[in-house]
């Protein structure tokens, strides 16, 4: 069962006099997100991540293409879908004079919540997001971390089935980011919420996401689990060796060796598969009379995948 099914979404923004400047933000983006998944959208600045998220959240109208959320069309049935989704962004902002509970009460009201249900939900979110000690503080006086936690609390006020998070940990201290990530993971585990997030932090995406889409220039270039994507770019594994007395010149010509970089005492060999090539390399080096002082294998990080696609 798909929570989100987007097909060939396109969006062009116009600006300047008579709309002469045109920016193609999305050029046929398609994605399918299964129910209950945490789905990451990665890509460089200006790739179209926020545009895609905003279209799916019904904040923007697409020029063409179609998308459904929980089986309902995002344009024709937008009003009904809005009851079941919510969004938080890293640069969220609320009316300056409202206190945390008032922000939640206001938005809760807009979702039609009232009475004891609303009061209990506001209290629970204030507790969950550790906003209790700041109950009397007006929004403008909250720190960045607290504002972000309030943004997440606001995004949970209607207990959404689909939650969009746009750079949720942007500018947060590491300890706050870790707690926020834990909260996001708990949401999916305990409530089965489908979460679609954009982030610039590869570790965050690697840790949280079941599947990831790389988006660049308004197009989705690759999609899969973090491991599938690492394999997909075929940058292979890196075998780091410390050799004595010298690095044999023929090392780069060995089967499966893609690249060789000598960095000081170490030599980095990019190989297609460390499992297959490492025994062969060690055997060959032994035959050449080279002593292997140290040997480490590095698998590619999601960051390497990002760099490869963003290039």
């Amino acid at each position, binding site marked *: 069962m798909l929570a989100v099914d987007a097909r060939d979404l396109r969006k062009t923004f116009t600006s300047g006099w008579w709309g002469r400047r045109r920016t193609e933000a999305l050029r046929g983006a398609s994605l399918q997100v299964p129910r209950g998944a945490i789905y990451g959208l990665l890509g460089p600045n200006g790739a179209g991540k926020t545009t895609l998220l905003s279209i799916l959240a019904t*904040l923007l109208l697409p020029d063409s293409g179609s998308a459904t959320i929980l089986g*309902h069309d995002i344009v024709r049935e937008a009003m009904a879908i809005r009851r079941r989704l919510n*969004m938080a962004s890293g640069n969220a902002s609320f009316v300056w004079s*409202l206190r945390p509970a008032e922000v939640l009460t206001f938005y*809760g009201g*807009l979702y039609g919540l*009232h009475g004891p249900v609303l009061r209990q939900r506001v209290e629970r979110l204030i507790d969950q997001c550790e906003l209790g000690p700041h109950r009397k503080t007006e929004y403008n006086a909250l720190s960045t971390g607290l504002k972000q936690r309030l943004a997440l609390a*606001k995004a949970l006020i209607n207990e959404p089935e689909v939650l969009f998070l746009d750079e949720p940990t942007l500018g947060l201290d590491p300890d706050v980011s870790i707690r926020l990530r834990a909260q996001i993971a708990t949401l999916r585990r305990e409530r089965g919420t489908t979460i679609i997030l954009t982030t610039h932090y590869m570790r965050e995406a690697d840790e949280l996401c079941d599947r990831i889409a790389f988006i660049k220039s308004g197009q989705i270039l690759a999609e899969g689990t973090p491991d599938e994507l690492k394999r997909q770019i075929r940058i292979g594994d890196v075998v780091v060796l410390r050799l004595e007395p010298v690095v044999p010149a023929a090392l780069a010509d060995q089967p499966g060796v893609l690249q060789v970089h000598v960095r000081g005492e170490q030599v980095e060999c990019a190989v297609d598969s460390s499992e297959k090539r490492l025994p062969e390399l060690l055997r060959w080096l032994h035959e050449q009379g080279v002593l292997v002082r140290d040997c480490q294998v590095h698998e590619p990080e999601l960051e390497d995948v990002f760099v490869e696609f963003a290039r």
Partner: protein
Amino acid sequence: MNSLAEALAREPLPREPWSAELVRTWAFAYRNIIMARRNVFFVFELTFWPGVAMLSHGLLTRFLHLDARMTAFILVGTVALSAVQICQLDVAYAVLFDIWSKSMKHQFLTPIGIRHLALGSWLVGVARGVVVFLLMAGIGSWSFGFDFIGGGPGPLALFLLGCFLTSLVIGLLVCSLVLLFGTRAETSAWAAVNFVVMLSGIYYPISVLPGWVQTVSAFVPLTYFLDAFRQGYGFEPHYSHAWLRGFVLTAFYVALAHWGLAAAITRSRRTGLLLKLSE
């Protein structure tokens, strides 16, 4: 076959209780009330400017040695301007608060309609408008012996209702302009009302306006409300059935303004302005 499978896969939307409609409307009133309670400038706009307007216009009538009838003519206009201005600001705040705090997208991410936004904020505007009226009535009565119920309580109630409905239309117009043109249109929140009252014969009969301007005035509901209310103070009416014409015209404009704001929101979703106003 395919469409049948799709239809079966669609998850039904739970039916909402009717109370959700009232709650959404109340949410906008709730926010405006908190803001009015907590910000000094709201108290200022509620007391200072209306007070200054009533005193300065009252003193002007003294200086010009105007009789009770002419004093009433002027001060009715003063009350109308302040009541309309205060009330329309509250309606405009439904969007302006979000513009100023860059939180526009959160509001329009929720399942709200124009009716919730307009009615909730308008009700607070009406309450604040009544406070302004009472304050001005007190000052006018105490300082210049002006009787605001001189035209009768019924016409007074109709007059205030007319003023507040005019405010709703102006407020919705301001919201639409802001959603069409962004922060550049903010000043319209203050400018629009002055333009409308100028056309409606606020301190003068519309007969003194140039002919073509009088034609334009005939399209402003406040023109009829002022004309009808002033009849109670002995002035000859400019229009027949002024109350009826005023309210019919207002109903038309409320529907038009509602449609206009809905169209402006759709356009801002298309152009991306809705997101830009949140950055």
